[in-house]
Structures are given as C-alpha cells and as structure tokens.
C-alpha cells in the first residue's frame, strides 16, 4: 500500500492507518524534530503532538499533494511555535564563538575540507550543523537527511522556492566556515 493510499484512508477516518504511519515515519520525523530542537525529550513531545495534530487536521489534507510534505509542515509549525515560546532565534544571534551567522556567511574559506574525510567526519559535521541557526539547520536536514526535493522543502517551510535555494546556499557556506574553523582549532597544538 502506498503512502498516499494510506493517507487517503486516514482522511476517511481509518485510525488504524495512523498507527501504521507513526511506525513508518518514526525515525525520520524524530530525527527532523531533534535537529530542530536539539533536546531528545522535547523532540519526543513534539513527535506526539505532531501526530495528534495530524489526526485532528487530516480533513484539511489534500490527497493530491505529498503526505510527507504535509506531515513535515505540521511538525515544522509545531517546532517553530515551541522555539518561539522558548528561545527566540534570529539570523544575527551571536554564536558561542561570539560571531554572528551573518558574519559567517559573508566570508568563506576554501580548502582544508578534504581533511574531513579522514577525521571523525560525521561527529564534526554534526557538531557544526548544531551550531547553525535554526533556519539553516532545518533546510540542511530537509535536503540532505530527509532527501526532499526543492518543491517539498518549499511546502514544509511555506517559502518560495527561490528563498529555499538562497537559504540552502547560505547554510552550506556557513557550515563550511564553521567546519574550517573547527579543523583549524583541531590542528593547533
């Protein structure tokens, strides 16, 4: 049974399908929420809230559109609401290093990146991703971990496709700079 068939059944009030969908999306949805909020307990709460919201609002889901996109958009809205209440973040919020994301995106350091392939790559990259500001972190997760297409990301974030591309470009530049700095720090004795 395809996802969209299941979603159509869910829309007609079949609650059993919902429990199957929870199982199917457990890791992906949890990972997405964890990347956004960073705390496992909060990610778990939001995970449950997302499915409750899905159950409440399933009648508004348009079966002609991607269920995944809709599901992640619901999760996105809940996570953003939560983060707005708890920790308002902005592009110019200082990082732990004292710099702002805007500073990072303005400059760029090529090279040195190849080293990553040989040095605790995943750990370093993950750490660097967690240092990005929310919007950058989210677009990177949706593209590279969820492997969503441009159109799907635009649906989840409720943004024009051009804005999504710009955001991804800036996010990658910021990430690369953070990584370069981490490698530089790692190299100094």
């Amino acid at each position: 049974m395809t996802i969209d068939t299941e979603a159509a059944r869910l829309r007609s009030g079949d609650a059993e399908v919902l429990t199957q969908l929870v199982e199917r999306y457990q890791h992906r949805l949890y990972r997405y929420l964890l990347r956004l909020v960073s705390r496992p307990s909060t990610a778990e709460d939001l995970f449950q809230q997302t499915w409750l919201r899905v159950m409440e609002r399933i009648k508004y889901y348009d079966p002609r559109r991607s269920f995944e996109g809709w599901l992640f958009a619901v999760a996105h809205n809940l996570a953003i609401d939560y983060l707005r209440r708890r920790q308002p973040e902005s592009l110019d919020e200082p990082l732990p290093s004292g710099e702002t994301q805007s500073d990072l995106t303005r400059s760029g350091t090529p090279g040195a990146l190849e080293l990553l392939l040989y040095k605790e790559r995943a750990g370093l990259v993950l750490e660097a991703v967690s240092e990005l500001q929310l919007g950058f972190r989210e677009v990177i997760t949706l593209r590279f971990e969820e492997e969503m297409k441009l159109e799907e990301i635009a649906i989840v974030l409720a943004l024009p496709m051009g804005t999504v591309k710009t955001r991804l470009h800036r996010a990658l530049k910021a990430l690369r700079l953070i990584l370069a700095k981490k490698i530089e720090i790692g190299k100094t004795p």
Partner: protein
Amino acid sequence: MKEHFIIRDLLSLAAAGMLEPSEQRRVDEHLRHCEACRAEFGAWTSLAGALKELPTPQAPPRLVFQTQRILVYAAAHRGYRWSRIGLACLILFSWLVTLATLACVGLLEIPVARWLDMPSTTVGVAYIGVTWLATALAAGLLGKHCRQEARTL
C-alpha cells in the same frame, strides 16, 4: 571572468542537487574548463556527502508505542464526545415521541383514572414524568458506561 564568479556561486547548490537543468548544464560546461572550480566543486561535494552520511538518531522504541496509545485514546475520546451528542439527541427524540403518543395515551387516561380514582390530568402528567425520567436515567447509565470504556483504553 564574470561567468566564473557566477558559476562559483552555484557550486554549493550544484553539489546539493538543487539546480535547474539549464543551470546544471551551465555548471557542467564550466567545470570542464576551470580547474579551480572543479576543486571547489569537489569540496562542496565532500561536504554534501558528509551531510548525507550523518548518523540517524533512532526514535526510542517506547515513543512509537506511547504515541499510538495516545492516538487511540484521543480517537476514543473524540468518539465519546460524539456519543454524548448522540445520547442527547436520543433523549430529545424519545421525549418528543412521548409527547406525540400522549394523544393515544389520552384514550386510556379516563378508564385508568377511574380505576385509580384520580383526575385524568394527573395520570397524563405522571405518564410524561415517568417516561422522561426513565429515558434520562437510561441515557445517564449509557453515558457513564461510555466514559468508563474510554478511560480503560
């Protein structure tokens, strides 16, 4: 030279696979001639590869189980809310039926009133009162049963 800088700015998105086919062709064409951009593209591709290979945090097994239980409970609770509305409608309907049948009962009222030695109006009021009370009692018991069922889920 201008083309070089335009393409350089597209390399990150090219590595992310986010370019339009026409832009991608432009980038591919440029990469064939420009060694510096090829190196830069290689760095972006490495980064994209590293991001795709990030470890996936696994959702705790209890999370799915808990979520499913919450959903079943919420569905039952929603059903319970509808059953309450249904019960209220049933009570109303039975009360209306009582009123509608009052005319038929009226035919029996006089012999019954004579037999009980009571005014016929009192018999009519008693008929309505007893029927309405019995309906409300039945609905209350049914509602209580539904609530208990929802709690045990």
